[in-house]
């Protein structure tokens, strides 16, 4: 990867890096299909950062998997996923394999089994490099592996280690370095800080932020922990029951959420020293709905503190909730119903 930062270009002149239209992901199961993603639209420009937040089971990981067609065989994926103008969902297998890692790469959660336990980490990075540049010699590949490790803050000699010899934070760094191996224009980070303790989380977030600014790579940052998103991502989208329920600039969404679910998510984080917080009830009552038996109308209404009579009967969509903001709730200004 070149060391000079990517040249800045006006956003309007460039086609979006990623453009998702009406994405549906349905898993196959004995009792029928399980809809994990129910119609998601998404746009990401070159070098832009988007945070994607929600509880477990809201569909965010399925969404990430769908972007590069990594879901289990037999899973039904419909819609359009335009990566640099090409539709990933209709690509031929050979083209898909060439595009993977070179145009978009995934930073997986750094659990112990995200890396092959019986292979040295250096080899696992080298494999990605060699897959996409056949002409690189052994020494060149080794040098590149060392370069990537140092980029993420690890000494080059760590390439000889096995995954179990690294700490959680170190493994996460390896996964980030691995994702950057082929200079992708898009990084999909799926819960990259979830398994880490707070201090290490902060370091990894700082690292991602630095890399993003240095190389101008677009990032989709997926997490259930909203507090980690506010600084790294410029825009934020919140998912619930397979759909995006709120979207907008991250600081605005974080500070004045339009959707009751987002409000509950932001309210659930302890703010040290905030006496008002201590008075508020923390946490969200109830459980996320079973995808096979979704509530009618707005799927959030059974748990919603702001629910009104029309909620169970109104099919909600993302309506305008401010400049560059939208939310799928009947209470927002752009909603076509009276509350």
């Amino acid at each position, binding site marked *: 990867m070149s060391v000079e930062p990517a040249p800045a270009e006006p956003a309007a002149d460039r086609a979006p890096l990623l453009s998702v239209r009406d994405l549906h992901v349905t898993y196959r199961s004995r009792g029928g299909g399980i809809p994990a993603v129910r119609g998601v639209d998404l746009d990401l420009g070159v070098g832009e950062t988007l945070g994607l937040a929600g509880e477990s089971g809201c569909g965010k990981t399925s969404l990430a998997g769908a972007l590069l067609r990594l879901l289990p065989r037999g899973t039904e994926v419909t819609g359009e996923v335009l990566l640099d103008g090409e539709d990933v969902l209709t690509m031929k297998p050979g083209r898909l*394999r060439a595009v993977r890692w070179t145009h978009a790469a995934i930073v*997986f959660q750094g659990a112990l089994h995200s890396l092959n336990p019986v292979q040295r980490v250096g080899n696992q990075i080298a494999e990605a490099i060699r897959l996409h540049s056949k002409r690189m010699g052994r020494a060149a590949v080794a040098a590149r592996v060392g370069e990537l490790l140092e980029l993420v803050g690890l000494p080059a000699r760590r390439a000889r280690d096995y995954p179990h010899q690294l700490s959680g934070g170190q493994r996460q760094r390896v996964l980030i370095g691995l994702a950057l191996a082929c200079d992708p224009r898009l990084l999909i980070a799926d819960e990259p800080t979830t398994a880490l303790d707070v201090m290490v989380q902060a370091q990894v977030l700082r690292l991602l932020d630095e890399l993003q600014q240095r190389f101008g790579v677009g990032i989709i940052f997926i997490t259930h922990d909203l507090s980690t998103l506010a600084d790294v991502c410029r825009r934020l989208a919140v998912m619930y029951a397979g759909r995006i329920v709120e979207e907008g600039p991250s600081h605005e969404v974080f500070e004045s959420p339009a959707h009751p679910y987002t409000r509950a998510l932001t309210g659930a984080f302890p703010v040290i020293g905030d006496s008002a917080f201590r008075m508020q009830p923390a946490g969200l009552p109830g459980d996320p709905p079973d995808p096979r038996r979704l509530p009618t109308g707005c799927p959030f209404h059974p748990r919603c503190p702001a629910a009104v009579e029309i909620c169970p009967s109104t099919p909600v969509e993302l309506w305008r909730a401010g400049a560059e903001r939208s939310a799928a709730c009947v209470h927002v200004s752009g909603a076509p119903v009276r509350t």
Partner: protein
Amino acid sequence: MSGRYLTGKVAGSLATLIFVVCFNFFLFRVVESDPVATLFRGRDLTQSQRAELTRQFGLDKSTGGQFVDYLKQTAQLNLGRSYTSNQPVWSEIKDKAGPTVALVGISAVFSAVLGVLLGIAAAWRRRTKADYSITGFSMATFSIPDFWLGMILLTVFAVGLGWLPTGGIEDPASTATGVPKLVDQAEHLFLPALTLTVAYLGEYALVMRSSLLDTMREDYLVLARAKGLRDVLVRNRHAVPNALLPVVALLAINFGFVLAGAIAVEAIFSWPGLGLATYEAIKGPDLPMLQGLFLVFSAAMIFFNLVADLLYGYLDPRVREA
């Protein structure tokens, strides 16, 4: 590999071997309380003759004394004399070890390799007809009595069709040497080796399939696919090496079964190895021979366990570089 792991395993094996040697002594002490009477069964012994023989065999000493004698003798590879042939047990074992090593070695290798390949094929084509037939076939061969399979193959191919010899290691009438002799021996080896291979590959196939199915759910496989690796390579480079680990653990256990199977199979095919020797020693009963064979079988098992342990350590870095 860390030196500590290596020496630890070797030391453990030696300790087990010594324990087995001691166990062997006491085990047979229970069986044969009066060797003199058994050895000279047909003849009438006077009291003084009996006393003299007892002294000669060192049987007048205390059990402790006899135990020390036994240890000394075993260390010198003096394992007594066969009741039936009157030859030293050790020389009989040496003569018959070769054919068994050939038979068991070939069968163990082929059953492992073929079994693993079948297991991989079945796991990869899960829930297809290929998977069901391989799994069914594996369970069936797992349930076959190995010597019965030998009887059937013998009847069909040797006695019935006459394609292959009916027993022994070579044609007794032939005076061939060199390559033709090897070919002759190979012909004789074919059916017994086929029997043992088929009887034991089922277990490998089932374990490999099960292990690979577990491995296929691991996260690092998704990562491998995401890098742009072809499915076949994802399987062979990432899934299979991890899935092989339980199979290596199986190697040691299965070796015991193959060894046990060799006893009956050698009997069926009159293959002149340690298995046939055991069969005949049971019929005797030729106790010194049985004692010696037990020791040799145990030593072979211990050695093979050591090899399997070291192999496992070589393949799994989590074990050897903890």
